[in-house]
């Protein structure tokens, strides 16, 4: 199964000092740009692509994959500290990360995020080397019906996002509807109002920054500082490091959730078109469903943060496996990486394994080194980044607003995206005012295009869509059972919560009517 001589040759290529320097620089660049709202990982990789042309192939690929790993983690920093996800893959991170910051546990949350990201990356790398052929074979069994059901599995989380099931559903379904805007694969142009910029659909970055980021800034205006409590942000350097290290240790306090999330991340990462965002959504959903304390999720539960971060980082291993073994990009970031390989005169796929095995194993082994370095660089950047919450909001708000505008513009170099962000910001302010879960709209926008495209592909492949289409395929049958199980447990939880609320209200009425009690 293993070609040990190639592995040894790949390992020897990693011994050069300049490779380590480029790896560290790539990580640093990825983390810093990942933390800037709007500066997505694919964008960070693509702006660095021309610089890699004069580099040797292994150095170039290791540099770019380090940016990839750094960006996946970096997006969590702004999500945790400001509730503004740097990239879509961090949307679930803010659900528990930001409440932790609000409680004065910013350093701990960042430490947990570093620990979960590095572990996710490490597990992803491990799978990349050990079971890559198996993962790829499994991923190839996923046709349109299976991909549709993966999207459905992700969307079932909407139902459990808010105290009000109906509000969450309204927000989520609206998100799915607007995500279908643009030209469909049948050539129909839907809901663009004549704007050619909407032909490719609603870009996720303006929607994300507007809905979550700008609306957060609006409500931040009412506070002097981001955190109500100063604990955890104004303490001494030693205390800050102690809290971050406690956060890292926290990661391993939930071994089952951690490993399950890593597994989900690797598998979903290996599915073409799925990627880190879907991995973190499905993983968070599963962690909440399996948790002994699901009510803590969304209120600063480290378990939620761990499940989201480890899955989105582990997905990198799966995506790289698919890219290296078959030359299929799992997402935008790996599509840019394929471009980088081609720039070096290398064609990813089975031939690359036969012709340049030491290079492939060198890239794989570099992922282990990246994971270890991520802990050090991640903690260092987090230590300085956490100081952002000490800045008064009167100075912080204009700074974040300008970075958000510049970041949104940078995605497609279009002012239309900035205007779209402003529209979503207005919608976000309105939804927050009436206590709708914004994350449900974002999930709808993220998952909607996958559901739409895969359902249409299923329809075209099988000449129609009915239950039998999903039942007669083994993988889709398993996924269908998972969806049914997920919905059933959710329904049971809603009923149980309502019963508890009714009991509490009855007890309160009894106590109120009898003051002696």
């Amino acid at each position, binding site marked *: 199964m293993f070609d040990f001589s190639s592995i040894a040759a790949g390992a020897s290529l990693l011994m050069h000092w300049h490779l380590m320097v480029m790896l560290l620089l790539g990580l640093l660049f990825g983390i810093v740009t990942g933390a800037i709202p709007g500066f997505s990982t694919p964008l960070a990789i693509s702006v660095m692509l021309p610089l890699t042309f004069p580099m040797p192939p292994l150095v170039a690929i290791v540099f770019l994959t380090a940016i990839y790993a750094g960006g996946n983690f970096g997006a969590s920093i702004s999500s945790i500290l400001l509730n503004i996800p740097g990239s879509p893959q961090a949307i679930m991170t803010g659900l528990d990360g930001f409440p932790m910051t609000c409680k004065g546990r910013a350093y701990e949350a960042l430490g947990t995020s570093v620990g979960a990201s590095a572990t996710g990356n490490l597990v992803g790398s491990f799978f990349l080397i050990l079971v890559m052929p198996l993962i790829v074979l499994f991923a190839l069994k996923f046709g349109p019906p299976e991909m549709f059901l993966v999207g459905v599995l992700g969307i079932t989380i909407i139902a459990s996002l808010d105290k009000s099931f109906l509000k969450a559903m309204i927000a989520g379904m609206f998100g799915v509807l607007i995500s279908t805007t643009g030209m469909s694969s049948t050539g129909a142009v*839907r809901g663009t109002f004549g704007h050619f910029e909407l032909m490719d659909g609603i870009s996720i970055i303006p929607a994300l920054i507007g809905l979550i980021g700008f609306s957060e800034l609006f409500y931040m205006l*009412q506070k002097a500082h981001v955190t109500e409590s100063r604990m955890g942000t104004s303490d001494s350097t030693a205390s800050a490091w102690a809290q971050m290290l406690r956060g890292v240790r926290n990661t391993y306090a939930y071994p089952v959730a951690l490993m399950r999330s890593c597994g989900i991340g690797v598998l979903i990462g290996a599915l073409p078109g799925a990627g880190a965002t879907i991995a973190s959504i499905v993983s968070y959903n599963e962690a909440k469903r399996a948790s002994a304390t699901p009510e803590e999720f969304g209120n600063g539960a480290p378990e939620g943060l761990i499940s989201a971060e480890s899955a989105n980082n582990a997905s990198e291993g799966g995506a790289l496996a698919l890219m290296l073994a078959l030359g299929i990009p799992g997402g935008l970031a790996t599509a840019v990486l394929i471009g980088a390989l081609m720039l070096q005169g290398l064609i990813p796929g089975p031939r690359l394994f036969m012709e340049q095995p030491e290079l492939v194993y060198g890239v794989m082994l570099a992922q282990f080194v990246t994971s270890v370095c991520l802990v050090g660089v991640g903690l260092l950047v987090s230590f300085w980044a956490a100081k952002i919450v000490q800045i008064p909001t009167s*100075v912080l708000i204009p700074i974040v607003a300008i970075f958000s505008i510049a970041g949104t513009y*940078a995605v497609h170099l279009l002012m239309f995206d900035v205007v779209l962000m402003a529209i979503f910001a207005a919608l976000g302010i309105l939804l927050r005012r009436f206590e709708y879960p914004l994350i449900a709209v974002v999930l709808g926008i993220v998952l909607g295009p996958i559901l739409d495209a895969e359902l249409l592909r299923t329809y075209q492949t099988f000449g129609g869509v009915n239950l039998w289409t999903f039942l007669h395929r083994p993988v889709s049958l398993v996924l269908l059972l998972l969806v049914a199980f997920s919905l059933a447990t959710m329904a049971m939880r809603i009923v149980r919560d309502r019963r508890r609320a009714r009991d509490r209200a009855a007890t309160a009425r009894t106590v109120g009517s009898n003051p002696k009690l």
Partner: protein
Amino acid sequence: MISIKTTRPWSRFAGEMIVPVLFLGYATQYYVSVARLPGPDTNLLLIGPVYWLLLVCCVSYAALRLADTVRAQQSETAELEEPPQKFDLTKSVAFLILTGVCIWSIPVLGFVTSTLTYIFLMLLVLGVRSVPLLVLTPTILVGLIWIGMEHYLKLPLPTGHLI
């Protein structure tokens, strides 16, 4: 500072209906426009079921809120789930107007001029009175973005028609 939560049941009900009416209005317009396109069976494959689900959820929500409102009216006790949130109206309105004007002016005056002015005015509105902070924050910030994007990342920032 103003309070943004009303204690009157019917006013509250009207407020609660803004989002469902807005969403349902847009969704209906979208559904009808897509249904008119050639090949509605494929175009509405996902949109159709999602629209009907949204409709059911909105109607159920409206019915539940209506029942709650009638109950609250009959018991003549306005239920307050949480204390009303205080809002600084000046800051909030200034933030919205300045951000809107900044986004509108970028294609006219260019990124640098618009954002320099925006940050300066925002700092003033939010209560910053330190002159070094008022001068240095916009200059350093816009300078960093300009150097980083234009020179380092080769991503051109928008230039205005006038400047």
